[in-house]
């Protein structure tokens, strides 16, 4: 917040200089619609640092959290489209408008209010079970779930959150029903699995890997189109005959009405930034390998992903009272 205010003050001071000189001639604010420390924040910081080098202007992070990200996303959608406000957001950007439709609410924003700039990372979720549970394979889990519908439980980061959507996608494909116990965030969801309060969990590789190594949880399958580099022995759902894919991804967006030349400059800055060795190293340390896509490819990826998520959301339907 303070940094956001700082950026705003810097921006205000620079207003007289507006309209002269090439973009950018003052600091750029990058909105992160989640609190510091989460996946979005961890991705945005190295991206901002790498863009700074390319643009020769500070790129200042502003965490505008609230309402599952809707507050910051709506703020970006409504920002002046001059290239001085951009955003790093996660796949949930496609879920919130669909959920608004489902509940017949006035939407906080629509997806066509954003111009996609670049995809930075995309990690398939991994299905893990508490190591003390009997299932050794997806087939065993599905057989047991069919025998006792609604008895096997899973935790999630929240209703309609990524972890919830991924598990329901699997349940829908396998035609089984799991019991949903939602938590606030991926961390508490993992704690509940470790404590044996729930049976299964879908989460990102960065979260599950240390627990797999320690033998506390067992991985059964991954949601990617191909196997994960860090877990080469883990089968994908596609190999197992379930036609599902799910990714937790992070991308950079600008307000849709931003002029094309400015979007071009920002895109080039990101393209240059993702090659920066410091950036690659920072992302690898954080356990999220770079999966860069430039705007046109990212747009295609986003459209496909949004369609997948919309379908899963409609399959889940309204969740009344958890």
């Amino acid at each position, binding site marked *: 917040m*303070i940094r956001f205010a700082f950026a705003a003050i810097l921006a205000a001071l620079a207003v007289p200089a507006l309209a002269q000189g090439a973009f950018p001639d003052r600091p750029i604010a990058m909105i992160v619609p989640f*609190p*510091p420390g989460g996946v979005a924040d961890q991705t945005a910081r190295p991206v901002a640092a790498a863009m700074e080098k390319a643009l020769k202007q500070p790129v200042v992070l502003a965490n505008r959290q609230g*309402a599952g990200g809707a507050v910051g996303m709506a703020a970006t959608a409504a920002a002046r489209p001059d290239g001085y406000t951009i955003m790093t957001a996660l796949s949930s950007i496609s879920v919130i408008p669909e959920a608004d439709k489902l509940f017949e609410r006035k939407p906080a924003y629509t997806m066509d209010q954003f111009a996609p700039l670049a995809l930075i990372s995309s990690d398939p979720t991994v299905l893990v079970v508490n190591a003390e549970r009997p299932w050794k394979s997806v087939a065993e889990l599905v057989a047991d779930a069919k025998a006792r519908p609604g008895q096997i439980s899973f935790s999630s980061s929240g*209703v*309609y959150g990524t972890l919830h959507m991924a598990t329901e996608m699997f349940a829908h494909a396998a035609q089984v029903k799991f019991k949903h116990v939602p*938590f*606030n965030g991926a961390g508490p969801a*993992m704690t509940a699995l470790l404590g044996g*309060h729930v049976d299964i969990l879908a989460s990102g590789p960065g979260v599950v890997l240390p627990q797999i190594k320690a033998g506390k949880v067992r991985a059964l399958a991954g949601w990617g189109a191909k196997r994960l580099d860090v877990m080469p022995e883990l089968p994908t759902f596609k190999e197992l005959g379930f036609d599902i894919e799910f990714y937790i991804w992070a991308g950079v967006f600008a307000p849709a009405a931003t002029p094309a030349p400015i979007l071009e400059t920002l895109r080039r800055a990101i393209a240059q930034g993702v090659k920066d060795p410091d950036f690659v190293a920072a992302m690898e340390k954080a356990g999220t390998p770079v999966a860069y896509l430039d705007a046109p490819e990212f747009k295609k990826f986003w459209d496909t992903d949004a369609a997948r998520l919309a379908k899963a959301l409609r399959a889940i339907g309204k969740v009344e009272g958890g």
Partner: protein
Amino acid sequence: MTETLANLALGFSVALSPQVLIYCVIGCFIGTLVGMLPGLGPLAGISLLLPVSFGLSPTVALVMLAGIYYGAMYGGSTTSILMRLPGEAASVMTCIDGHAMARQGRAGAALAIAAIGSFVAGTLSLVGLMLLAPPLASLALKFGPPEQCALLVLGLVVLAAMGGGSVLKSLAMTVLGLWLGTIGIDQMSGFFRFQFGLVELGDGIGLVPVAVGLFGIAEILASAGKPQLERPRTPAFRELWPSRREFADSAGAIGRGTVLGFLIGIIPGSAHIVASFASYGIEKRVSKTPERFGQGAIAGVAGPESANNAAACGALVPMLALGVPSGAIPAVMIAALVVHGVAPGPTLIQDQPALFWGFVAAMYVGNLVLLAMNLPLVGVFVQLLRIPYAYLYPAILAFCVLGVYAASQSAVDLWIMAGAGAVGYGLRKAGFETAPVVLGLVLSPMLENAWRQSLAMSDGSYAVFVQRPIAAGFMLAAAVMLAWGMRRR
């Protein structure tokens, strides 16, 4: 044991290196400043400085962030005692007797006991962290939603039943707080509740504006309403130090607060705030002079302050031993570790002995640094009370407005603060205690989530709260406490 000592020696060799020591001092100093500002709590402080830590080595970064965390806990007590301004929720109980002591010219003693209690609690909890982290952490995992829910109920009942006046009045205030906490987006289903078309209420009623309004603003209103403004007696320099009697009254409170705080801190689910409130209730119960509570009982400062710091330390147990956060602050610290390429997980202590033991040793050093930094400052802070109210109060008001606005940048929060101030003044006049409102507000979302998660786990059967032994024990204790509180009237 010898192994532990050898490890600790390794830790101190890390912690006493000049670079680590410097960042430890910087962290403690920034933390103290952050804790004093009413709007900024430890979470905001750590979050703001997280990027600064990216350029440091993992050990140094963790030490600095831990220093901020601890420092903010210390700093919060200063404004609470001097101005009745809780910097964060955990300081609310300190406001009551701490500020009453300040009015009687014992601000120095209250500040000193707060610092000493925090130091003792922090140091003893570290011994607990060091020796018991792995076994305690697996025990902590047994606390699922039903146990958390039962613990929260117990926490709320302890404060209401032990509070000063009528139990019914206290319960009414608790319920008011719980209701205020349900305003905003329903975390489970995404529905808006009680927001009356105001978008700004979507994220709920913030704790900071309510706490600052109910305590700081209401206090100013109450003082201004008195025909003759009484001035707190400013103490002579030699009166700054607690008397022998005050030390004796505090010793037991510090011990009990430490154990209670540490145990509550370990439990995942951010219920740490219960520690300082429950400690106050217990001290009042065991005190030979319960009528002095609210009028400046030193045990009412010593207990909650110790419990608060012990809980902060206990909260690090699940993080270090299991790699899972037990609250928002450890979650940010885990994020910091991840950025540095250290994967926090169940094997952290084996994989990174220098990091873990260096961290433990640095916390010992940090506690010492904080004590050394805070005790000399007591004399400086007490001088603030020499400022005439005509100047001090407008300054405090400006301070409140600035702090609350800086924390959220929302004008609605300022209105909430003003409203809470007016309501708090009215409630004081009518003989209601307002601390339960704050506790209810903080715990409301956690209680609701734990409640709904429990019922989701049990397919809607309420038996889940009595079938699980730990949950049943807490529920029984809550019932006994409530019955005792009602009968006492």
